[in-house]
């Protein structure tokens, strides 16, 4: 069986859930495998991250390098191509860093690339049977991945739920000497923090959230009317911000805000995983969508198959009548 690696990202020494999720995925590829975690960075943050990773993985390779202060995928790719043996299977989280690193890395390692994997069903004879989604989550697919020349897999955050950390008691090995030159043609400058708007949707108990089903800028008014009737705050999914119908500060999702309301009204929102990734704390979810196949109905508590353009004003009116 091929050697298994997981690249573990951290932010100022702090891991996110994907650190443990990648270990769960690795165990599905080979139960009991000696998975090597790779951690990069500098200084005390790197040491803190390595200690945390050693609680999950038996072996931790630490790489300290001035070019790795910020996780620049172009520099990290160069490092991984040097240190990961040919034929290995390497796991990454499917976040914006994994999306940046994975495709090019697979080419340089001459390995198969399976992105945004949500399930690992079977591994046998150098072949993995994986589960992915296509068409914005509207279709599931089994995908066969040839592992014979190695593979890079990116795993969707939240799809491989981890149990309690096992206390792996892993060994941290300082491999910084093997890094060598990591100069890249892309240089990190800064991170610009998201604008904070006039509204703070993260503090709202009730959100009236609209998506593509709103169809037209003029109809945004219907959401404001309903929010007013309910005593709620208006939020939205990505297409509404892309169209500039509502400000970025109102966007729920991995590329927007993470919210934890008591009640979430998903109106004309199909329910992509990027959107649902911004919804925490198990709210009571009401989904209204004219497409009965919309993925949002799988996660909602209550579903109503209606056109929101008719439903929203009717609901507002009824609430106002008391």
């Amino acid at each position, binding site marked *: 069986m091929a050697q298994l690696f997981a690249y573990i990202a951290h932010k100022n020494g702090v891991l996110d859930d994907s650190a443990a999720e990648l270990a769960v995925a690795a165990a599905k590829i080979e139960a009991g495998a000696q998975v090597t975690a790779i951690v990069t960075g500098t200084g005390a943050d790197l040491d803190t991250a390595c200690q945390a990773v050693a609680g999950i993985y038996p072996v931790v390779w630490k790489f300290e390098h001035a070019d790795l202060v910020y996780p620049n995928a172009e520099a990290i790719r160069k490092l991984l191509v040097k240190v990961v043996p040919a034929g290995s299977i390497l796991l990454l989280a499917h976040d914006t860093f994994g999306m940046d690193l994975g495709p090019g890395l697979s*080419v340089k390692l001459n390995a198969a690339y399976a992105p945004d994997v949500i399930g690992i069903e079977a591994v046998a004879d150098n072949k993995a049977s994986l589960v*992915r989604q296509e068409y914005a989550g509207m279709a599931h697919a089994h995908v066969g991945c040839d592992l014979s020349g190695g593979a890079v897999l990116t795993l969707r955050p939240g799809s491989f739920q981890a149990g309690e950390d096992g206390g792996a008691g892993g060994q941290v090995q300082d491999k910084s000497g093997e890094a060598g030159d990591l100069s890249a043609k892309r240089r990190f400058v800064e991170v610009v923090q*998201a604008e904070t708007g006039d509204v703070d949707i993260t503090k709202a108990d009730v959100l009236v959230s609209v998506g593509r089903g709103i169809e037209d800028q003029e109809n945004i008014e219907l959401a404001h009317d309903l929010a007013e009737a309910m005593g709620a705050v208006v939020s939205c999914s990505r297409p509404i911000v892309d169209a500039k119908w509502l400000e970025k500060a109102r966007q729920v999702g991995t*590329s927007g805000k993470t919210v934890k309301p008591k009640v979430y009204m998903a109106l004309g929102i199909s329910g992509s995983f990027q959107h649902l990734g911004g919804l925490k704390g198990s709210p009571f*979810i009401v989904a209204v969508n004219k497409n009965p196949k919309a993925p949002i109905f799988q996660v909602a508590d*209550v579903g109503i198959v209606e056109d929101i353009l008719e439903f929203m004003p009717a609901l507002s009116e009824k609430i106002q009548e008391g």
Partner: protein
Amino acid sequence: MDILVCVKRVPDTAENEIQIKSDGSDIERDDLVYSVNEWDNYAVEEAIQIRDKVGGTVTVVTVGDEEAEEVLRREMAMGADKGILDADEIFQGSDGRGIAAVLKAEIEKGKYDLVMTGALADDGAGQVGGMLAAMLDWPYASVVNRIEVQGDSQLKVGREIEGGNQEVSEIQMPCVLSIQTGINEPRYVGIRGIRKVASVEIPVHSGADLGIAADLVGAASAKVKRVDYFTPEMGAGAEILEGSMEEKIDKLIEMLKAKGGLK
């Protein structure tokens, strides 16, 4: 600046309900409405805006069959100067890497300073841009939501990262960027615009034209293959409220009151 934008013709998920064929071999393709991949539209708009600011050309390319020509014409109606169709039976069944290999050959046939793709397409993989960059040994940045031209050989780019934050980098040209939606507001294309470019000739490049070895493309070379589509066993899902609109609303209001959703 000479810019190449790689585009794809896809079923429009905003217009279609995607249904899986009963044998799982494909989605139901009868009556599907196709359009240009949404992300690609933003990439073409961005390319046109850069060209209009600093000069140069915008070329759009797709790997597909004759039907894919319609998306090239649409993007030319937006303002792209030229379209190229890479079509050959040997390309069929290619995985992302095979498509990237075709595009690499196309790029080496021309001379481009900047290549753009959409950040994602219908298969949700987001892979071709990054693979292409690695094959060309050009730098790459994904999910780009801002581009600023800095002289002849460098761009300042913003990547959309988690939480809506923006990671800003300087990247040397030539480079490959995958473009996120929302970077601009793509212009509207009317029927008259499409008519204007209806008779413009679109060159078709085959594998032989591009000098592509057959073992780099097609189903036989693919290391990652879709086996089938399936309908997963789901949990109970939502309690679907039935009845007339009024009945649904009454039930919902009752529930919202119980859950603290009404003040």
